[in-house]
């Protein structure tokens, strides 16, 4: 399989998942929250393609709706993390000295803690809600981005063309934004996809252990937890969301990988973790 077709497939998968989530109200066969106690844990049928869950809700519809929260939050949080990371990273990389040290210390606080720990603490203190999960995701995401941006800007700063540009563009802001950042774009895009993939999984984990999205909101992580109990008689209540979760995070991660290979960017694997 050539790189290009692999890339297209991964991108395609991701677009399919995103489309499914966006168009959920249109394509879902039934309401994801409509309870029907007379038809609990039913196997797949023509009325319910994946059967029903323990409250008689249509599993297929819940799976279709199930990614909305996680995808929306991870997408939004990734964007915000990028903005914060780019801003702080550029400042640190360009100005160096004290600004650099200060920002680095600030960064190291967030890098010195596991992402899940920060998330659990923030959600624990603020109460589980879309807002607190978003804040938690941003808190865990921005530092890795700012580190990469910082090192990229630092390297670029010493290039000859920058020296030349500094002569007629004394204001660094314009220089950084217009000329340097675009050069970092490939790396940043790859980074963004990695972050987003990781956020999707983290949100699912938080939901699974009960500090993520709350009922009746359908969410893949919650559905997997709920589906454990009746797994023997109705495996689809767990398998449906598990497969979708896998597809979503896999397509994002694979896309990132393939882009990185294609653009042959320097991406520090060491920060690929958190």
């Amino acid at each position, binding site marked *: 399989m050539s790189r290009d077709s692999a890339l297209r497939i991964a991108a395609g998968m991701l677009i399919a998942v995103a489309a499914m989530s966006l168009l959920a109200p249109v394509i879902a066969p039934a309401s994801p929250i409509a309870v029907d106690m007379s038809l609990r844990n039913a196997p797949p049928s023509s009325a319910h393609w994946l059967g029903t869950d323990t409250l008689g809700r249509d599993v297929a519809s819940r799976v279709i709706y199930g990614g909305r929260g996680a995808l929306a939050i991870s997408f939004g949080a990734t964007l915000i993390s990028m903005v914060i990371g780019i801003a702080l990273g550029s400042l640190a990389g360009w100005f160096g000295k004290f600004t650099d040290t200060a920002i680095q210390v600030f960064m190291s606080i967030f890098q010195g803690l596991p992402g899940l720990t920060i998330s659990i603490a923030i959600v624990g203190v603020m109460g589980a809600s879309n807002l607190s999960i978003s804040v938690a995701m941003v808190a865990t995401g921005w530092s890795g981005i700012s580190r990469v941006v910082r090192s990229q800007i630092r390297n670029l700063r010493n290039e000859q063309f920058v020296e030349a540009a500094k002569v007629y563009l004394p204001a660094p802001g314009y220089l950084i934004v217009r000329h340097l950042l675009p050069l970092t774009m490939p790396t940043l895009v790859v980074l963004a996809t990695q972050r987003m993939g990781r956020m999707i999984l983290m949100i699912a984990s938080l939901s699974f*252990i009960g500090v993520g999205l709350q009922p009746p909101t359908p969410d893949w992580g919650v559905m*997997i937890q709920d589906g454990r109990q009746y797994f023997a008689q109705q495996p689809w209540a767990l398998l449906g969301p598990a497969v979708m979760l896998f597809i979503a995070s896999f397509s994002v991660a694979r896309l990132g990988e393939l882009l990185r290979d294609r653009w042959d960017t320097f991406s520090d694997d060491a920060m690929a973790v958190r």
Partner: protein
Amino acid sequence: MTNLLRVLARHLIQGVLTLLGITVLSFLLGHIAPGDPAYAILGSDGVTVPTEEQVQVVRESLGLDRSVVEQYFLWLGQLFRGNIGVSFMTNRLIEQELLARIPVTVQLSLLAITFLVLTSLPLGLFLALHKDSLLDHLFLGLTSLFSAVPGFLVALVLILIFAEGLRLLPTSGLNGPTSLILPALAISLGSMTQITRVLRAELLAAFGTEYFQSARAKGFPFRFAAVKHALPNAMSSVLTLWGNYFIAILGGSAVAESIFALPGLGQWVLKSINSHDYPAIQAYVLVMGVLCLMIFLVVDLLQLAIQPRLRRAS
């Protein structure tokens, strides 16, 4: 030697600054938490309802009527005296819980990182030596698949196969060392493939270096040179990676402890969240921060040991 000391000193100072930063973060967490701590402490037995005067007294004794900065330093002072705080939930010192639970989480994470190292090292080496073999292609294909599966799913599958199906290992609880095997596996499986892949890449890169080529030229057989000359250099970045994954494993232990009902820090903080026990959550962040800093320190020391070049401070 003084260079080495200077390097160590620099790392230590950075570590201390980061630790202070973590204390600020932890303190702020407690501050943005809703509810009145004084009220929570007084009413924690669920039976008595405190009067306004009682609440005022406790509030003053906790220093809640002073400015945020003052409160931070008061709290920090308490920390130095070894008082991590009193849990809202049990009305007992948090230390007691911590002392019982930290070993469980640490043991779990150590086992997980051991699995990680014991598989990624030999496997990465093997794959680098047999580049482009069938196994190599298979493995590369599987890497992205494995890294997209969240830890809790892996845990569920493992329980199904090993605990219920084959009845080899316990399904939950802490009853001897076998109880940690499945949870440790669940946390580390996702990262195993990733790190193996990186080690493989680093080794392949090392094979291309002058250092390696000259070693081969001297007559060392390929396999021997791979271990003696290529591996140490490749190890450097992998070591950092192991350290970072250890951090992630520590974080992921919360999920494993929840599924496998292990009495560690993760299970405790989840219970504390359900009790709105904010001092406990603060303590959790602090303890994790300290543990992670220690890991960073160990990794840095190991790096210095492996790469003598680093001993000369830049």
